[in-house]
């Protein structure tokens, strides 16, 4: 029974990850077109015609999806990548070349294991908590996986056997290490605030007031750091196309390239999940009281959570296409001279508040 | 439950491999990594002892070893970069300025 529950949870979690990644892909393609005053993908599937009886009733739907560009971005691109030549440059270790994209995706997917997807509910007389791994280390596990993600880009940069790749890999490693410090300290402030490491417990503490109300600075730090860790937005120096062609994935094609893409979009989803769970009440909405332990309440809670997560995903993508890129010294200055001291002071303030007993969550 | 001697044997093997590495390799960075290997072997044995004795003191010791290892990495890699700048190589036998 327990194994079955875990299997179902794993299946649902995997679908959530892939769903968020594909929605992000579509929003990125079509949204960037909107922001840049282009039309964007709108051809594939648009003029589909078929005499098959099975297809007849869904034809308008497919055509509509085609106009929206969904078929182009999700179906055609994936199929195209599958059939592309898998190019490996000369003089590199084939194993390392394949290990790079794998290591870029694997930690991100593992980190999803601690994310609770909905409130607890009772099914067949058993209380089920939809969280794959309720670990004692909790948020620390997320930090551990975040630090493992550096290896993907570093190895990929090395395995390209190419100056641009190497520079991109080095930049990515330096950037991620620098911002990890501020991220760790911001997380400690959150842990001090809630007094627990478990994400599920943290969400439960926000039933009345959302966390962002009394820890706005922590939220801002984590939001900026999250965008830097995904290597996007104004922080996309490791893959700056005007300087490094494509940075650490210059020498990748086909499915391996798509894996980097997937890891990036899954990571956007991961950080959105964290922000929502830590600061925006997870499945809680103000003035909405869901009954405890009902399966339909869990479904509604899940929908609320996913809505908030999608909002933050879209926000990150819009910011990415709005803001210009940093210079590398500006990036380092922001990380070391502003964010790190700010998160230290932030931690001190919350420590003092907690010790003085003024902060009761 | 796995007996503690298994963990200790594993730790001893790891430590021995680390010692061999320090003796065999001449690349300073690899020697550095072999030292980390030895530290890890000791850490593993301390955690195993901690469970056997029944208190957390051994694990606290491991925590401090990790702190020292982090400090060591910061200084050690700084020295390695300085060495590379002055001798253009990382052979440990090349760093013999003081002997002349």
């Amino acid at each position: 029974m327990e194994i079955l529950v875990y299997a179902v949870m794993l299946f649902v979690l995997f679908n959530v990850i892939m769903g968020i990644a594909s929605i992000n892909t579509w929003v990125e393609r079509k949204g960037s077109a909107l922001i840049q005053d282009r039309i964007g993908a709108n051809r594939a599937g648009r003029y589909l015609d078929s005499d098959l009886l099975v297809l007849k009733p869904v034809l308008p739907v497919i055509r509509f999806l085609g106009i929206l560009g969904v078929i182009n971005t999700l179906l055609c691109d994936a199929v195209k990548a599958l059939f592309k030549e898998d190019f490996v440059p000369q003089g590199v270790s084939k194993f390392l070349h394949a290990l790079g994209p794998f290591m870029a995706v694997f930690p991100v997917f593992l980190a999803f294991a601690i994310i609770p997807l909905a409130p607890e509910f009772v099914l067949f007389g058993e209380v089920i908590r939809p969280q794959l791994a309720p670990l004692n280390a909790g948020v620390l596990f997320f930090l551990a996986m975040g630090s493992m993600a550096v290896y993907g880009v570093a190895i990929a940069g090395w395995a390209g056997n190419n100056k641009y790749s190497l520079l991109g890999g080095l930049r990515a490693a330096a950037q991620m290490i620098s911002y990890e410090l501020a991220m760790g300290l911001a997380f400690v402030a959150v842990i001090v605030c809630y007094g627990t490491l478990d994400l599920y417990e943290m969400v439960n503490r926000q039933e009345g007031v959302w966390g962002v109300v009394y820890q706005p600075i922590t939220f801002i730090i984590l939001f900026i750091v999250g965008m830097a860790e995904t290597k996007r937005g104004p922080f996309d120096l490791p893959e700056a196309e005007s300087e490094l062609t494509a940075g650490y994935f210059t020498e990748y094609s086909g499915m391996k390239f798509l894996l980097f893409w997937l890891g990036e979009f899954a990571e956007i989803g991961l950080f959105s999940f964290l922000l929502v769970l830590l600061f925006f009440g997870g499945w809680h909405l103000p003035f909405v009281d869901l009954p405890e332990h009902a399966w339909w309440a869990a479904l509604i809670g899940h929908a609320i959570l996913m809505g908030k997560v999608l909002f933050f995903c879209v926000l990150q993508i819009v910011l990415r296409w709005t803001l210009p890129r940093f210079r590398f010294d500006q990036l380092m200055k922001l990380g070391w001279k502003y964010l790190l001291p700010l998160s230290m002071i932030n931690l001190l303030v919350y420590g003092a508040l907690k010790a003085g007993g003024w902060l009761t969550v | 439950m796995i007996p503690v001697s298994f963990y200790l044997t594993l730790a001893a093997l790891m430590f021995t491999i680390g010692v061999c590495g320090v003796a065999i390799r001449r690349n300073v960075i690899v020697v550095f990594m072999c030292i980390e290997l030895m530290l890890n072997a000791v850490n593993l044995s301390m955690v195993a002892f901690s469970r056997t004795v029944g208190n957390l003191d051994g694990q606290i010791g491991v925590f401090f070893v990790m702190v020292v290892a982090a400090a060591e990495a910061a200084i050690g890699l700084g020295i390695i970069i300085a060495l590379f700048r002055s001798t253009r190589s990382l052979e440990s036998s090349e760093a013999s300025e003081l002997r002349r």
Partner: protein
Amino acid sequence: MMILFALLGALVIASAIGVVALRHPIHSALCLVLNLVGVAALYAMLDAHFLSAVQIIVYAGAIMVLVLFVIMLLNIKVEQPHRRGIILTLLATLAGVCFLGILAPLFYRGLRGFTDHSSKIEGTVEAFGELLFTRYLFPFEAASVLIMVAIVGAVMIGKRHQQGGSK
């Protein structure tokens, strides 16, 4: 449980040998990362949850990334085999085996008089933190000073000397 331990042990030993035996520093470093992750899993098997997380964050996530960074930055090539390489290697391996020979009986004899409690002691974050901020407060503070000194030292060593400036 036993199977898991055997697998992890094999992984840890194989990757440790890889660190020593592989010629390219990058491969050595990646083997060491594998080794560290394996040891972290062993910590988790020993109920040291906090240490297992810290092992991955600090060792695999920070220290080894720095090492990898330095290797990539200096663009180190494959180590050339030395003239006396084979003899030296054999001698060193022999010394290592002798060392293990000394170590093993000590462990064996020492452990016979040892009562194995194997109690359910769990290295949870709460228990760990409480001990660290009460009985081990002074070493903890001393360690933070040590880290501070190390940072300053690393900055001083790493600083590029200006031409004509004080050396």
